[in-house]
């Protein structure tokens, strides 16, 4: 800086009379930014801030300009999601009356995504699941009439909320099954230890109308599925620790489980594994699945990927392997892909750097250093 100042001073000695002839810079007026219409390459980065865990936040980041557009406070161990139309960010979180201690208040806060201002809140019973972010800690019904929030005390249940009236409608017991996987206007499914899915159907007032337990679709002993499911065209898909893909069609009253397929060959199985905090991303239009993969054994299911593998959802063919060490990137523990026609992949490393790739070619476009402290989850419309 000193050198630059010196240059400027020298410049001034030569050219100042000329420069001074120009009118001075105008007075500025302090304003508050508003966001324009949402863009396909924006992404909401959920930063757990694990080392200062009461100070989690969501950073809105632009994958084209590589700029941070704003921030939403997220409290402690939050669940975060977007409304189906993308206009609202909901944060289910816990606050303490004295920062890191004191009386607990569980709450869902609503943020207008065009202004990043809070528009309201719903105070919850102090039962909210305190866990890592997934799409299923807090989720809207497809028509936005209900909002569901997962409870674990450690008994498991969920809350049904009215996001318009900002009220709690009911609490529904899930018999040991966890999380809120929404489908249609009034169905909530939960994952059970038995490898089954519990589906509760609600009536118009948000109370339980009926429930059904599926047949087991995975084995929690031999090959459990990650709870970080990914939205597909007609439901969600779940990866297993060993790389099985369980596609679940939620378009009917009860979930339909397609025959699972494997992202690893029999030679790779058990040696190459998916892992991390967010274990896959799917471009629904192109049917491309992006999975951070690592070499590892039992117990490595939270290790980040040293490569990103790309699959065709229809043919199950592996289309590409993107090695990350060439870019000097640390292991990737969270991933997302934009849903437009010129898609980009966001990949967060264990150092909380975020890499942006061309989703079609795998070309590295940008590395945003230190986007948050521990960014483990991405949301986009």
């Amino acid at each position, binding site marked *: 800086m000193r050198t630059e100042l010196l240059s400027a001073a020298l410049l001034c000695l030569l050219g100042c009379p000329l420069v001074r002839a120009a009118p001075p810079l105008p007075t500025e007026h302090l304003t508050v930014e508003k966001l324009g219409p949402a863009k396909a390459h924006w992404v909401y980065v959920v930063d757990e801030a694990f080392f200062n865990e009461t100070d989690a936040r969501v950073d809105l980041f632009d994958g084209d300009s590589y700029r941070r557009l704003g921030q939403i406070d997220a409290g402690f161990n939050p669940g975060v999601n977007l409304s189906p139309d993308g206009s609202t960010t909901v944060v289910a979180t816990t606050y303490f009356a004295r920062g890191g201690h004191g009386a607990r208040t569980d709450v869902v806060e609503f943020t207008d995504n065009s202004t990043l201002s809070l528009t309201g809140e719903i105070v919850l019973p102090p039962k909210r699941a*305190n866990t890592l972010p997934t799409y299923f800690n807090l989720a809207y019904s497809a028509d936005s009439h209900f909002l569901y929030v997962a409870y674990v005390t450690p008994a498991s249940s969920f809350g049904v909320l009215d996001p318009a009236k900002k009220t709690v409608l009911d609490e529904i017991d899930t018999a*040991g099954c966890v999380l809120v996987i929404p489908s249609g206007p009034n169905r909530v499914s939960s994952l059970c230890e038995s490898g089954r899915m519990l589906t509760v159907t609600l009536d118009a007032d948000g109370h339980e109308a009926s429930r059904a337990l599926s047949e087991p679709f995975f084995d929690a002993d031999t090959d459990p599925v990650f709870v970080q499911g990914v939205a597909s065209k007609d439901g969600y898909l779940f990866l297993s620790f060993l790389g099985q893909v369980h596609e679940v069609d939620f378009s009917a009253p009860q979930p339909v489980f397609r025959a699972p397929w494997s992202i690893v060959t029999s030679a790779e199985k058990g040696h190459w594994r998916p892992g991390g905090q967010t274990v896959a991303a799917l471009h629904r239009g192109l049917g491309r699945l992006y999975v951070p993969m690592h070499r590892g054994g*039992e117990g490595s299911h939270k290790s980040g990927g040293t490569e990103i593998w790309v699959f065709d959802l229809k043919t199950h063919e592996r289309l590409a392997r993107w090695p990350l060490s060439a870019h000097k990137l640390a292991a990737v523990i969270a991933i997302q892909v934009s849903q437009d026609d010129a898609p980009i992949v966001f990949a967060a490393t264990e150092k909380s750097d975020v890499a942006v790739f061309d989703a079609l070619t795998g070309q590295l476009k940008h590395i945003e250093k230190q986007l948050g402290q521990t960014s483990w989850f991405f949301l986009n419309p």
Partner: protein
Amino acid sequence: MRSIDRVFEQSSRSLAQRTSRRSVLAALGRVLTGAALLPLLPIDRSSRAAASEAAASALDNPQSCEYWKYCAIDGFLCSCCGGSSHSCPPGTAPSPITWIGTCHNPADARDYIVSYNDCCGKTSCGNCECNRNEHEKPMYRLSRNNDVNWCMANADSNYHCSVSVILGVAEP
């Protein structure tokens, strides 16, 4: 190790299927009480401590993530926060509920059943982050899961750090 794992997996599975919080707490209480009733064997712990200090490898160092007892811990090691591998730092409160693991101690070639309690009520310690996941399971198998905040049922439910407490030996 497999056999005892299976016992605990099955017991935890039945636990998680219960729906009332009180019954889960009571069941976990039974497990913990049972373990606490195991007799304290007459061992010279000071000489053991001295010997393990001499070895001084990461496997023997409670301030290292590689310490044998931490095989499925996820969080900040209380031993780097004013506590030890099995004590909470001053001014924090242990979580009464917990997740359970089985870890192999290479020093005596035994498997031990450990409970990973969280210490609660102060803001995150932030030291010695450690994330190991041997036989750790997703949240639907709650008593084998280390992603949830086990301070959840404490009066002050903020998470500070984690310990690993020997409940007993798991004979093969």
